[in-house]
């Protein structure tokens, strides 16, 4: 373990401890709720980043998986009286995985824009189903009337307890996704993103790897959907609408594609800014849209890209006249930015 990695690990543990302590700091409940939402959408955004940033697949179907999991929790609780957390979670994620297995077969018949359009259409189908299959989904009214079950004997009905629970879920998902990205499988995904033709010529079943990534990302997004259902104790068609799909994608792009932690930061920005703006003005979506466009135009690489640039400027400033000796294997200076 190098010094840099030790520092990063310490910083991560520190950040997690601080985050866990937040409810004890006397913050208004409102902010704790927003942070809870951030952790939930952070999971969804990170899982979409596995597709967009690491596999090169831009999917608009993520809301379908988010919403399907959420609806499963609500339907199981209200119509089948299955309220226990672990069985409900298992069934919800299983259903989502099955849906993703089907959608993946359909969407991966196309590449690039075709793939995007198919995922968009599939998301609309699921939305339409939730909107019109009133006997199961409650239609426009959605489903209410279920509460958070205890997990490991812990009562999650309070804001602080549920906050810590979502934080723990976020950390588990982050650890798993980071492991996937750093594994040989993760390297194959990045190869598939860069040059699918080359990867096929090397012997990789490109479509199978894309398919695996698609299903894995859907299951993680399903975790976020389950948490969101419990967070609101309500589900409605908006949870699997194209709006939600776009919002998750914006979190990814805003935060920095292919960075995992970037999309988490993107989720924080979208959750906090949209709430703050909606308190100020009714036209908040207009302002939010302008902010997105500005970031896309002027800050490619998203928040993580801005961070890198600031670090580079600071690094250049502190290094002063005599640049430190570079290790033999490091790339040439100025090599980080995309061409």
């Amino acid at each position, binding site marked *: 373990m190098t010094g840099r990695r030790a520092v990063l690990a310490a910083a991560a543990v520190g950040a997690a401890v601080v985050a866990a302590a937040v409810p004890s700091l006397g913050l208004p409940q409102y902010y704790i709720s927003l942070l809870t939402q951030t952790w939930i959408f952070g999971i969804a955004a990170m899982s979409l980043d596995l597709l967009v940033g690491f596999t090169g697949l831009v999917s608009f179907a993520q809301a379908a998986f988010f919403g399907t999991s959420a609806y499963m929790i609500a339907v199981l609780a209200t119509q089948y009286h299955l309220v226990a957390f672990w069985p409900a979670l298992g069934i919800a994620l299983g259903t989502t995985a099955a849906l993703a297995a089907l959608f993946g077969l359909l969407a991966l018949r196309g590449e690039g824009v075709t793939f995007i359009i198919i995922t968009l259409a599939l998301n609309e189908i699921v939305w339409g189903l939730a909107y019109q299959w009133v006997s199961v989904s409650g239609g426009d009214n959605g489903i209410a009337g279920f509460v958070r079950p205890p997990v490991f004997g812990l009562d999650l009905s309070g804001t602080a307890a549920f906050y810590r629970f979502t934080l723990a879920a976020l950390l588990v998902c982050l650890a*798993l996704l980071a*492991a*996937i990205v*750093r*594994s*040989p*499988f*993760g*390297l*194959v995904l*990045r*190869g598939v993103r*860069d*040059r699918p*033709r*080359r*990867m*096929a*010529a*090397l*012997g*990789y*079943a*490109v479509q199978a790897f894309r398919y695996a990534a698609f299903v894995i990302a859907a299951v993680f997004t399903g975790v976020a959907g389950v948490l969101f259902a419990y967070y609101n104790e309500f589900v409605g068609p908006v949870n699997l609408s194209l709006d939600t799909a776009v919002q998750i994608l914006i979190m990814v792009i805003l935060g920095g594609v292919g960075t995992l932690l970037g999309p988490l930061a993107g989720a924080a920005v979208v959750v906090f800014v949209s709430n703050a703006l909606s308190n100020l003005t009714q036209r908040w979506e207009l302002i939010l849209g302008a902010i997105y466009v500005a970031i896309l135009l002027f800050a490619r690489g998203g928040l993580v890209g801005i961070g890198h640039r600031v670090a580079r400027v600071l690094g250049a400033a502190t290094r002063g006249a005599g640049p430190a000796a570079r290790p*033999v*294997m*490091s*790339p*040439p200076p100025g*090599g980080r930015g*995309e*061409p």
Partner: protein
Amino acid sequence: MTTGPWLEVRDLTVRFGSLVALDHVSLAVARGERRGIIGPNGAGKTTLFNTIAGEVASSAGGVVLAGRDITRLPPHRRASLGMARTFQTTMLCPRLTVLENVILSLAALRPVRRQFLVPLGRYRGLRDEALALLGQVGLDGRAAWPVRMLGHGEQRQVEILLALAQRPAVLLLDEPTAGLAAQDAALVTAMLREHSRDATIVLIEHDMEFVFDVVERITVLHYGRIVAEGTPEEIRAHETVREIYLGGAL
């Protein structure tokens, strides 16, 4: 050990709409042979390659590798049977490092490629193997560089290294020295000479000196048909070939 040809193209025809790109092409390459394929632009050389590699479907005829009919197999299945190739324009993963590109080549045909929770860094052997390969061609100093930062010649070397790393049964080289400056081309030629001694090679090339120098037999394509086949000397002396391709330059 098979006694027949190692790589066989049987009566291959490829049509794109009304265009006949390959017209009943047959080719038999022995194990360990180095075969050159030449022909003017548009003769069908790259189409022949893409059909052998599985990227282009044949309209009729087939491809046999080591006695096995691979005509219907997709590219990655052919690769798993020992077919490796380079592309005319270098095709590497530009955002990955040189080392990662080589590791991807090594891992392609091993179960490790599906390992999805153990960090890559844990596979020391894979990394060392990749570094050793890079060392053989003098590129170990570039291991941590993103591929896109390498020069043309170096990228082409990595491209060939990816193919060689798999110890392929058949190596398809699509104009390995095309577009390279003279000294880079020399580097690539030297690398091929040194590191592919026992490989079976099929090579497309425009650079005549290079072809005549490196291969044992040459097949000449013209308008999708084979017009001549023989040793470099025979091809040099071949009347039709001189007319249609070499323009009497030799």
